[in-house]
């Protein structure tokens, strides 16, 4: 047996083939919740929970406010793209191919004569849908499986740990290429399904770790001594105290899923041409990079800004929830 002064799982938990998602994981490891509750600031003061403390910090954090506004804007234009863009993203006029900025087409036209501005606005919907749905799926599946494994331990816990090891050994882009290259459906759902399939082990490790930490707290022992059932302990006592790291990692992962969708579409296995996606547009613009760089730059900029907004949001939330930084 190795004599290790640290818990191996905690160090190794920050690893994996997920590439972009790893840092989120390892940084979230430092996020240990101290049991919330009244800190005794005087009998008159109302006890502040970690959440209301965090919310107070967030509202004052300019990074949070800016990224939240960007995200709000993205959500609005992905719900109602016609608010700021007229015409259809599929309406293209070859005669205008590669033309630069002009009235009605502030971002110019791409190699097929499509309006880059319209396509960039409509592309937001794909990215936001994929990001939000994949994150919800991953967070639900991962935290339920990881949480249960961490709480009950034993045989199924070991099985789950080995399964997550297997998933971490497969490079993400590679798995996407293999799985999605045979899919013929041209909707976002296979892409989302793939992300949930390959993404849940990341969240499950975080959830397992934080449930194990929360489980050892005195208030859990107290609840157990009072005769609370497993489900009550899990839902009322452990879940609220173990959910913070999951939220942080999931927010940052949302940005990386958007980037992953674009990468897969760029490689030709995510969404395919009649659909509108930034990845497709960037891929289509790359042969004309010399004559019409604007067709590449605008969707790339939109993609980068979106990913940046989600990563900064996650960063801000982590800082607010991390008591060590106070």
């Amino acid at each position, binding site marked *: 047996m*190795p004599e290790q002064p640290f818990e191996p799982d905690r160090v190794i938990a920050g690893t994996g*083939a997920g590439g972009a998602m*790893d840092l989120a994981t390892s940084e979230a490891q430092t996020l240990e919740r101290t049991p919330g509750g009244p800190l005794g600031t005087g009998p008159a003061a109302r006890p502040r929970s970690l959440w209301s403390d965090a919310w107070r910090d967030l509202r004052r954090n300019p990074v949070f406010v800016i990224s939240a506004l960007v995200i709000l804007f993205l959500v609005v234009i992905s719900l109602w793209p016609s608010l700021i863009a007229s015409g259809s993203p599929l309406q293209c006029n070859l005669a205008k191919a590669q033309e630069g900025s002009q009235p009605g087409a502030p971002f110019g036209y791409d190699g097929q004569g499509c309006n880059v501005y319209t396509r960039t606005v409509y592309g937001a919907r794909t990215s936001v849908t994929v990001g939000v749905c994949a994150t919800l799926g991953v967070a639900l599946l991962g935290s339920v499986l990881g949480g249960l494994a961490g709480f009950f331990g034993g045989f199924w816990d070991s099985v789950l740990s080995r*399964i997550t090891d297997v998933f971490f050994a497969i490079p*993400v*882009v590679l798995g996407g290429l293999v799985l999605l290259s*045979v899919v013929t459906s041209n909707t976002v759902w296979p892409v989302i399904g793939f992300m949930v399939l390959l993404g849940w082990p990341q969240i499950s490790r975080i959830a397992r770790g934080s449930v194990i930490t929360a489980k050892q707290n005195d208030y859990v022992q107290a609840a157990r001594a009072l005769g609370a059932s497993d489900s009550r302990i899990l839902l009322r006592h452990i879940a609220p105290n173990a959910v913070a790291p999951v939220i942080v990692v999931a927010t940052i992962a949302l940005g990386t899923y958007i*980037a992953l969708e674009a990468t897969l579409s760029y490689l030709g296995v995510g969404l395919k041409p009649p659909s509108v996606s930034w990845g497709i547009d960037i891929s289509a613009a790359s042969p004309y990079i010399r004559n019409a*760089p604007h067709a590449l730059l605008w969707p790339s900029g939109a993609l980068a800004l979106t990913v940046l907004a989600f*990563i900064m949001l996650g960063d801000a939330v982590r800082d607010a929830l991390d008591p060590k930084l106070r």
Partner: protein
Amino acid sequence: MGRYVVRRLLQMIPVFVGATLLIFLMVNVMGDPIAGLCGERACDPATAAQLKKEFGLDKPVWQQYLTYMGNVFTGDFGTAFNGQPVTELMSTAFPVTIRLTVVAILFEIVIGITLGVVTGLRRGRPVDTGVLLATLVVISVPTFVTGLLLQLLLGVEWGWIKPSVSPDAPFGQLIVPGLVLASVSLAYVTRLTRTSIAENKRSDYVRTAVAKGLPRRRVITRHLLRNSLIPVVTFIGTDIGALMGGAIVTERIFNIHGVGYQLYQGILRQNTQTVVGFVTVLVLVFLVANLLVDLLYAVLDPRIRYA
């Protein structure tokens, strides 16, 4: 030490079997391995049946998997679509990707750790904020965008580099592709090192070292850095596998004929043998890199002993 290594090697077996089986199932069950052999047209049923028999594809999947793994352990990875043995493809592709990965890792170590130490020691100062913002931007721009932009700027507009890499891919031509491949991980290494340094800076042993009157340089390199590197080494070690797998995008942009290129071709042409063969080797690389990282812990932190 020896016993620990043996135990870890044994633990690698189920992960290896699981990962290769998963890829094997994905490739075999979801695609039609015969379809790639008849070119664009569909195979006629008689030929298809004969080909299936020839390759043992009429047997159940688990049996195919066992046969395949048996062959792999005798060094036979099967044949690619053009009749070339897969091992031959590997012998041309892996050296290229290994060179690319080495360049990327060097960037991560040299630039990432340096920036991390500099910012970690000056937490909250303008340098720190600037670098932190820069890392956020680098993380947010997907690799393929960074690659295309650098290719456009350095290769096409300014002509500093060749936009596509020649087939033998010497180190000199791999510098920019290596930087692109490393970019996101580079930002992570910077941030991890920064966090770790900033946390350990306040620890007792650093204060002791300073109190002993050691020069600042020695305190940082010998005491602070060595203790702060464990999470960074973990990240870089596991990144080796991710870099080699993630090279698909970089290799496609710069037209590098490495592992990613062969895998991409194999997947497009539904060539099972190539895909499974390359992925098997990649999984092995990932597992061995993880093992080496764990052994490195003992070097970095003498408190960790593997009995």
